[in-house]
């Protein structure tokens, strides 16, 4: 099902941080995992992902390190303490929003 872009953009950083809470990943791996977990609903473009990752790193929510795997130098991202805090606040925000929308949709 195609989803309106504006709905996705606000929550992308939250989803990326959530993925990294599980384990450190590189960009391509994140896109693959996100696709698999969302059953192909979220097909994130690399052109959107990298600016987002770099900005999260710049804000101190992520750190990055390089690791050589099969001759390729991969850049892995790892969530920081303040990233976890930020994720929690984003989740709370999302839950409030979600509940409010559901309340309106379900009103009789």
């Amino acid at each position, binding site marked *: 099902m195609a989803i309106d872009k504006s709905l996705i953009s606000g929550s992308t950083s939250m989803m990326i941080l959530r993925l990294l809470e599980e384990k450190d990943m*590189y*960009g*391509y791996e994140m896109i693959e995992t996100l696709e698999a977990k969302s059953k192909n609903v979220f097909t994130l*473009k*690399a*052109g*959107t992902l*990298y*600016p987002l990752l*770099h*900005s999260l790193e*710049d804000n*101190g929510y992520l750190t*990055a390190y*390089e690791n050589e795997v099969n001759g*390729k*130098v*991969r*850049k892995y991202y790892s969530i920081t303490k303040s990233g976890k805090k930020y994720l929690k606040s984003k989740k709370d925000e999302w839950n409030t929003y979600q509940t409010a929308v559901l309340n309106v949709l379900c009103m009789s």
Partner: protein
Amino acid sequence: MNIEEYITTLTEQIRYKKARQEVAQEVRNHILDQTQAYEQGGIAHEKAVEMAVLEMGNPVEAGVALDKIHRPQFDWRLFAITVLFSAAGVFIMYVTGALGSEYSQLARQCGFAALGIAIIVLICFVDYTFIGKYPLQLYILMTVVFFIYQQTGRQVNGLRGPALRSLVYLYVPVYAGLLYKYRGKGIRKLIIPFAFILLTALLSQSLGASLYIGLGIGAICTFLLLYAILKGWYQIGEKRITAPALVAAIFASVVLLFAIYILCFAADYQKLRLIAFLQPEAYRDANYQVSATLRAINGAQIFGESTEGTLIKDFVQQENFLIFAQVVAMYGLIAGAAVIIAFGTLTYYALHIVRRQKNQLGMILSAACFLLVLFNCTTGILMNFGFMPMGSLQFPFLSRGGAGTVMYAVVIGLLMSCCRNNVRHTVV
């Protein structure tokens, strides 16, 4: 559009050229991974590449978005506190009598503070990677310049050299460059950095005409080497010896060598100062300066002048670090706490820069600057409270004269340069 065309178009949007290499490598790997995935799905190579590039999205949009993030950053907060603390420092030096009572001295110190700020801005815009590229040349150049100055410069108390003694601390960032240049795998690679610690300590002691400066610089360089080891530079942890054990061994051996050095080469008055520190009751006369300082601090009130009076102004002019005790004696413990908070703030900012460094040279260089500030502030305060034997030392922003001001300006400038040029891939 092929892979290279895509990458070129994307990276061309990023105006900060140093950030391009890192982005290009990451994007290239992504396209190659995607191509491989398509090929595994049975698509021919040419077509797989084409599809992978298309999958990436618009290169200009992505490049413009990355350009907004990758900008050289001027650390305004650190700069603002530097300007503020420099002004406060001159004011404190004036009111405590550290500058003497003449207005000309005040004007001179204001000039040095302004020079310091100019140096910070200048160094901030210089690319620090030259320290990792030519550390040995810099080391030799510094040594030659200091040596010539020592032979020809102005004499202070019968000694040549003390006028520039604070500048000798600049061996520390250069040592960071040496560590970076000669890093490698294995214990044998530690011989060069270890030898440079001893050489630097000896040179600093001789050129700075102070045993304390030699030992202090040796200690800071040792901490820096230990930091590099713990960061895995020499990759020794996985083998027979663990990194913490090696750190302990190096630290112990450096302490031992310094102890032997003091016993064999320190002047008699220096040994006496040490013994007097260890046995304060037996050497009350030798400890006159220390006991006067402690008396003033012990009588300190929360606000206002110490019940034991203030220090003699000559003390503060001679041994600049005693300005802390003078602040406490004249204005109370709260004023002393404010000075400590100011040093703490500077040290915290320096640590913040170290922790955010993306490349190894930036990390070791900023760590060198951080350690220098931390070491001098901590030991200086400890000396004032009588927990360490007194030696020659200057606090940041409270250094009378040009050498100390210039040295700290270079250190803060280097920290700001590390912050400004914080990219993962440095070309050294």
